[in-house]
């Protein structure tokens, strides 16, 4: 088999080898990945059974995993999941709207950017968990307590990314738009938005993870209803297998959210890149 004409041998070979290396490695990678999980479970089992950790407090996976399936059948579990996702989604949505509006408005004005810079740089690293006592004082066990924490943390992730995105807008494109009589709103819609979109997606992905952490934290510490509260309840009630089962469930929720965010990012960006005519790497 000879190289197709018009393409250097080096490129042809490199592409073909990379492709076949990827394809031929796929089954092996899947098997290794599954083996890795198995090894982890075996270590856990061993630690529990051979007393590396107090077996009362660390039930082995052979107890925890069946318990997980039992828990999945209980209605209350799904209520807790719903409460968790509800707070997460609401907090994320509020943060998104606030961050996009403020991000675009501030991002488009060099004066505002400079004026707000010191405040942003100080407020941004404040750990949102510092607001926990305030949340409890103001809202007690109501969902607003969770929302205060979630919104504060998620807002900064998205806001910073939107600022980067707007800063990345091509000044030449903007000037062109202006010279063709595009209104401010039109320029935002047709130039700023497509440029900032990939950044926004990154911010949303990071914010989604952070929002989940804060939602769970609020439930663990304040006691707002949700998976975190259920975990604490299980611990207090000595139901340790349930506690670990709920932890696993929370982990899977985190994975789902992560995957969802990546799919959304990829879907929006493929549209975005084809509109801009860029070749995908």
């Amino acid at each position, binding site marked *: *088999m000879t*190289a197709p004409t018009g393409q250097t*041998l080096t490129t042809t070979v490199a592409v073909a080898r990379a492709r076949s290396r990827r394809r031929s490695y796929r089954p092996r990678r899947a098997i290794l990945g599954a083996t890795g999980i198995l090894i982890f479970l075996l270590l856990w089992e061993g630690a529990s059974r051979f007393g590396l950790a107090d077996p009362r407090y660390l039930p082995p996976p052979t107890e925890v995993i069946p318990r997980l399936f039992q828990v999945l059948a209980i209605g209350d579990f799904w209520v807790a999941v719903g409460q968790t996702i509800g707070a997460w989604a609401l907090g994320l949505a509020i943060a998104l709207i606030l961050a996009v509006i403020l991000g675009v408005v501030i991002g488009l004005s060099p004066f505002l950017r400079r004026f707000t810079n010191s405040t942003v740089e100080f407020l941004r690293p404040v750990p949102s968990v510092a607001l926990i006592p305030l949340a409890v004082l103001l809202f007690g066990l109501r969902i607003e307590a969770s929302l205060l924490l979630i919104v504060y943390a998620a807002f900064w992730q998205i806001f910073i990314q939107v600022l980067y995105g707007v800063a990345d807008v091509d000044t030449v494109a903007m000037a062109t738009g202006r010279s063709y009589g595009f209104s401010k709103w039109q320029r935002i819609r047709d130039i700023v938005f497509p440029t900032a979109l990939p950044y926004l997606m990154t911010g949303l992905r990071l914010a989604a993870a952070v929002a989940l952490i804060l939602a769970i934290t609020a439930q663990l510490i304040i006691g707002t209803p949700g998976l975190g509260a259920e975990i604490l309840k299980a611990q207090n009630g000595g139901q340790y297998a349930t506690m670990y089962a709920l932890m696993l469930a929370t982990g899977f929720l985190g994975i789902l959210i992560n995957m969802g965010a990546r799919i959304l990012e990829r879907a929006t960006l493929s549209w975005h890149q084809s509109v801009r005519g860029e070749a995908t790497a």
Partner: protein
Amino acid sequence: MLPDASAPLNTVSHGRTLPEGETLLSVRGLQKIYETDGGPIEAVRDLTFDLGKNELTCLVGPSGSGKTTLLKCIAGLLTPTSGEVILDGKTVTAPPKKMAVVFQEYGRSLFPWLRVAENVELPLKNQGVPKDKRATLVAEALDNVGLAHVPQSYPWQLSGGMQQRVAIARAIAYQPEVLLMDEPFAAVDAQTRADLEDLVRKVRAELGISVLFVTHDIDESVYLGNRVIMLSSSPTVVQEDLIVDLPDERDQLETRSLPRFTELRHHVYEQIQRAKKGFRPDDALAQ
């Protein structure tokens, strides 16, 4: 004494081999087949030639003639499917100590976190060469390539041509016997390329290194080399092995306007065109 323009060209239609005493690098029956999903790709079929001491040999071929594959096999970066590469009597299985490579992508080959002097010094440091000896070698190498004034700069602060000089300095500080250069000036502008070509000739003459220079630029191959090996299209074999009988002292203006230069260049160009059209020397030989 300039060669008579009508004298026949000293060329053979296979790779030249040399008697053992004169050989530095030997390539014997080199073959490389890549296994891919779509079937095997035979990049290089059969390459045989010798490189003598103090030679500057250029390898030219049409695009896709496996030049880089060949160079990587010689450098020990790729394992040939069959055949062997012998340096100083020992078969090459991994990058040998007496060989240095200058890559085309200087931007990616030089380490951007190291300054120029540190880049040049690194292979020596890795070998355990003592500090003062290193400093001497580095200073000499940078001086040789005309970069004595920028040891503390970062490579990316320099122009493309200067970066490639750093890569060359790094190679010669390593004190190799053979210098392999993989289309090193392809990504550099014409003006700079001319300077770098002269630099290679100067460095080789002063340090007595043998150079194997891969290029797709026909003019460059004739100007630079005392020998040009022309490669066929893939699956690659040696199409011709031409001795360049131009005077040793080369000058960009003078040499390039010699009638002999034009003749040699013309011949190489013809051969490459034949190669591009799919001429197979092994078929021709079989007839």
